[in-house]
């Protein structure tokens, strides 16, 4: 029945996901059985007992044994399902002691991940294959929810406490994660890619942040525009959004909310990325995360170069 499972459920990224799917498929078949039973009796009755003139129907008011049976049998089945569900839930609730810890900060509408060695990443998550990993999560504004589809885990992320999930990634490759608790305009764009890396490429990623030195700066900038979440709030075609559009900014005067006007040069762009609250463009709120310590020098260079190309158009 693997064909049906793969048709109605996503890829499995962990042994736990496979367990959940086994349970899910059990419920699917149980539901099919009961639906066919109920629909079968209804359809049979409609066909077999259609009204005919002179019909006389039996006066059956109740039957205690029958009614007891159809109360107790479903109850027993439901109790099995209850226990099965609790078993899986408990397993998902308790991370192994040696799980690596990644700190997750959710904010409208970006994900920030911080590794034990201080490495930080936005909307892009790298984990090592076959190493259980635990996420300690909190929100900087409203409620979000970290949903890693292929791992079959999710949990809400709250502004006033830490919540946790964990999984043991066993399948190398790309998986998707997303926000599952409604958080406003950018809710459906608040997703990213989970890379389950083999040991060598995970170490390489931690060292370089995944930036390949051979990519030209402006090309790197346009990739970071998507992967670091800039595109959630900044457009490149001049249309308005949560933040100012990048089109035609570079080299032009920018009016600030405190009344000053500055020229958008390299230093202005660099400061606006790293310490976003330092100068707020008139008409916008101070909502952008601080990228100081998140972006590497070459990444900042790349973004500046990319914004430059948009300014010249």
């Amino acid at each position, binding site marked *: 029945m693997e064909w049906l499972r793969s048709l109605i459920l996503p890829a499995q990224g962990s042994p736990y996901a496979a367990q959940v799917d086994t349970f899910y498929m059990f419920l699917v078949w149980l539901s099919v059985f009961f639906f066919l039973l*109920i629909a079968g009796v209804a359809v049979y009755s409609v066909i077999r007992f259609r009204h005919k003139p002179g019909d006389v129907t039996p006066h059956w008011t109740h039957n205690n044994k029958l009614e007891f049976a159809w109360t107790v049998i479903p109850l027993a089945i439901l109790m099995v399902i209850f226990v099965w569900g609790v078993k899986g839930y408990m397993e998902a609730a308790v991370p192994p002691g040696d799980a690596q810890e990644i700190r997750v900060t959710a904010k409208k509408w970006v994900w920030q991940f911080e590794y034990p060695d201080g490495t930080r990443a936005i909307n892009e998550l790298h984990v090592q294959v076959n190493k259980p990993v635990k996420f300690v999560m909190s929100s900087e504004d409203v409620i979000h929810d970290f949903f890693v589809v292929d791992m079959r885990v999710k949990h809400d992320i709250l502004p006033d406490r830490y919540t946790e999930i964990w999984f043991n990634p066993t399948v190398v490759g790309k998986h998707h994660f997303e926000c599952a608790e409604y958080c406003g305009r950018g809710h459906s764009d608040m997703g990213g890619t989970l890379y389950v890396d083999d040991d060598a490429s995970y170490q390489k990623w931690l060292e370089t942040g995944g930036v390949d030195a051979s990519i030209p700066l402006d090309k790197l900038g346009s990739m970071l525009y998507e992967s670091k979440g800039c595109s959630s709030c900044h457009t490149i075609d001049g249309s308005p959004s949560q933040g100012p559009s990048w089109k035609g900014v570079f080299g032009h005067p920018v009016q600030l909310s405190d009344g000053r006007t500055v020229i958008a040069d390299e230093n202005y762009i660099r400061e606006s990325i790293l310490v976003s609250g330092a100068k707020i463009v008139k008409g916008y709120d101070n909502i952008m995360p601080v990228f100081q310590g998140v972006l590497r020098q070459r990444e900042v260079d790349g973004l500046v170069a990319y914004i430059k190309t948009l300014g010249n158009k």
Partner: protein
Amino acid sequence: MADVISAPFHAGTTPVERRNYLTEPKGLWSWLTTVDHKRIGIMYLISVMAFFLVGGIFALLIRLSLFDPSHVILGHKMLDAETYNKVFTMHGVIMVFLFIIPSIPAALGNFVLPMMLGAKDVAFPRLNLASFYIYWAGAALAMVAIVTGGVDTGWTFYTPYSTSTDTSVAWMAMGIFIAGFSSIFTGLNFIATIHKLRAPGMGWFDMPLFCWGMYATALMQVLATPVLAITLLLMTIERLFRIGIFDASLGGDPVLFQHFFWFYSHPAVYIMIVPGMAIVSEIIPVFSRKTIFGYRMIAFSSIGIALIGFLVWGHHMFVAGQSQTAVVVFSFLTFLVAIPSAIKVWNWLATMYHGSITLETPMLYAISFILLFTIGGLTGVFLGALSIDVHLTDTYFVVAHFHYVMMGGTVMGFLGGLHYWWPKITGRMYHERLGQIAAALVFIGFNATFFPQFIMGGQGMPRRYYNYLPQFQPMHAFSTVGSWIIGAGLFLTLGYLLASLRKPYDAPDNPWGGKTMEWQTQSPPLTENFEVQPVATHGPYDYFPVGTH
């Protein structure tokens, strides 16, 4: 012992013009100031149908926008993300608070409950009229919220989003706050009416099962709705005066809001579905021409649902941040509440078995209810099972599940009841064949719309998403086409129901051969319902030959 059958109705048997509640007293003012439960029921009916139309148009817009991930249909951009968020919020708020909750109790229940009990009116007729105007006061504030920018919180108003967004949340919350009182008043009225105004000879277990359903619903309305009122009031106070109750940045707790909200809103789910079950319990025996099977079990299961329904709110919050012990306890209680619903389904099937079944429109809707509610119930088992709920919660699976219960259940029950009592309410028969075609369209369209959403949810498509991954496009498109089929069925229904009103009275007093008391008076009834006080001489579903009882 056996039940003898009266033949199904054939049009044209008793077209008589008689004195009735519709025509006297005359004039708009006499309607607006009426204390007649039937007229108030009709005013409610028109109101809830109007909001059903508005909420339905929002639903069609949502589906149209999701037809393609580009949101472009025939060269036109449908909705932007902010508008989309407002449209799904208003669809939810209008459907839940202004359509479904009042639909069966306040509109149909108001009309038939006193007649089923053999009473002249409800226990407190003026409170009944007050309930109607309070409903409209609440609805008016909700309309103010919509025209002053709308609301983008989702119908659940989760904090701190709802206390930080700059949309018209306070207007909407106050609208729902006020509309809640109309629901409480209706509930109070029904409890008193059922206790005090049953006809001579009608004990509790001689009442039609619809009355048991209304009684269970009324208990929940009276006990749960005040909690919603308190919750929305606290949220509004926090929003307007920055007093920290739910907002973490002010020292409050956002999970507390969810506990409060679902303490009302889970019973509210039963406030919505139990009346639908109550209607099905009337329609099935009448169109099977056979006594109801397991009367007491159906009656007690309504009360059981009302009681256990108060103890399962935490199942909306399995991943929301409540304690793991609470999660396990709520899962257990959730499985318990499934049992009374399952019992009803078995009893309906046993009633149909060996019946003498005809498939007029009300029966088609009742059978639709059984099939769709079964799917809604079985998928509820998935969501009650903890490890599976963690994967499915906040996805389209949940969206599909509650639409199978709320629309496949309650709305099918409402439409079944509307057709069942239409001859009594209006004195006219609707076009039967068109009714059957419309019921089939609604059934097919409903499944086409919502069944794919189970699969999308299982595959990880989150709810309340404006943009979605391209892999979901075919199923979203299919779902959208389904919504057009539902729309066609419902507009057809509106058409033939309105057309029937142009005819002279042509409905017999008892077109379906019902045994309950509302069928013993004329169609449409007198203002005082019965010429003489009826006396209960037989059970509500006794298909006995007269004299052999």
